[in-house]
């Protein structure tokens, strides 16, 4: 049946809700005003299940119970979801405790930890430039921007977010999407004197910007202009004037 998704009925924390088949538990809970903590979920990109903070307990119609990441778990008829049991609270605390040890300097993680009842990490502290390896930047760069300039590299404890060879930013158009979407501010972006500086946990890259021919403000990176005109067919000259100065 095209266009008309069928609906399923489930319960979340005892409340009966209706949802479209195939929707993820996390989204359905959020729509119904039920809060589940998350770090690696974002509406613009496909779910990835990296942070595991969104854990909930589910019981299927045939009685199977388990802990799942709600951002990746589709709703089904008769599902019973619990988002706030003792067990879940304990699991979330362990997860945020580990994340806090990984990123002790991140105010986002600190706040989240406090909210979940963890004041201080019980593990040895590390420094990874605030990166929790959630891959939101990687997914945004690939799925939204379409350039895939960054990826997660290496494996296990050496896993890192990086540009190829840690030094090749050829594919990067300096749009800054990674910086906007990063939940822990591990990627920063700064514009000054016609240069955009993007700082990632493993490298710093500078990009030239183009000035607006009316107001003179530098407003877009040169490489982004090239990329947009290449993908849309709009003449590069169109970007000589910034959005503020266009009528």
């Amino acid at each position, binding site marked *: 049946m095209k266009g008309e998704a069928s609906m399923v009925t489930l319960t979340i924390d005892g409340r009966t809700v209706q949802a479209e088949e195939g929707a993820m538990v996390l989204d359905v809970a959020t729509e119904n005003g039920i809060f589940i903590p998350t770090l690696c979920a974002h509406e613009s990109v496909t779910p990835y299940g990296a942070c595991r903070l969104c854990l909930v307990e589910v019981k299927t119609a045939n009685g199977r119970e388990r802990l799942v990441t709600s951002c990746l778990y589709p709703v089904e008829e008769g599902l019973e979801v619990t988002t706030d049991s003792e067990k879940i609270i304990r699991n979330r605390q362990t997860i945020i405790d580990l994340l806090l040890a990984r990123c002790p300097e991140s105010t986002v993680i600190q706040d989240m930890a406090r909210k979940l009842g963890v004041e201080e990490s019980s593990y040895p502290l590390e420094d990874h430039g605030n990166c929790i390896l959630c891959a939101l930047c990687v997914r945004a760069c690939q799925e939204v921007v379409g*350039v895939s300039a*960054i990826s997660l590299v290496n494996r296990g404890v050496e896993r890192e977010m990086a540009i190829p*060879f840690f030094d090749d930013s050829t594919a990067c158009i300096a749009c800054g999407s990674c910086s906007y979407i990063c939940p822990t501010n591990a990627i920063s972006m700064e514009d000054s004197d016609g240069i955009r500086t993007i700082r990632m946990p493993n490298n710093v890259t500078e990009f030239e910007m183009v000035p607006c021919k009316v107001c003179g403000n530098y407003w877009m990176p040169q490489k982004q202009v090239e990329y947009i005109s290449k993908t849309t067919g709009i003449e590069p000259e169109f970007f000589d004037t910034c959005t503020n100065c266009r009528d």
Partner: protein
Amino acid sequence: MTMEAEQVREKVGSILDKYERNEGMLVSILQDTQAALGYLAREALLEVSAGLEVPLSQVYSVATFFRAFSLKPRGRHLIDVCLGTACHVRGAVGILDAIERETEIKQGDTSEDMRFSLETVNCVGACALGPIVIIDGKYEGEMKIDKVKPLLASYE
């Protein structure tokens, strides 16, 4: 040891052709490339990326994910030191230290004379014989620090 860029491009080109430039075959293509060149040269990864029209970041991600791939030229002999739990408690770290001293390289590196590359692995399933060192695929069980020197001497 490093090959000319031109040669690399040629070899990678024929591997790409063999797999009909199918991006789903990325891992096999990298395996063949590693076999042909001895390692995954930077030039080779650029070539694979361009040939498959797969972003370089994704090729690099896969190339750095699998232990079997090396982005640096490897030595004539590959030493793997097991640091799995069983070997660890039997003193694998001491063995690794001794090998690092003897070869003057750190784990993950290759000696300048290209004689040895040194890597670590986590459990090779021979725990009862630990600590285990594997050289060119040959298992050396119950390693002791004073066995390191004579063992390495037998590899030219």
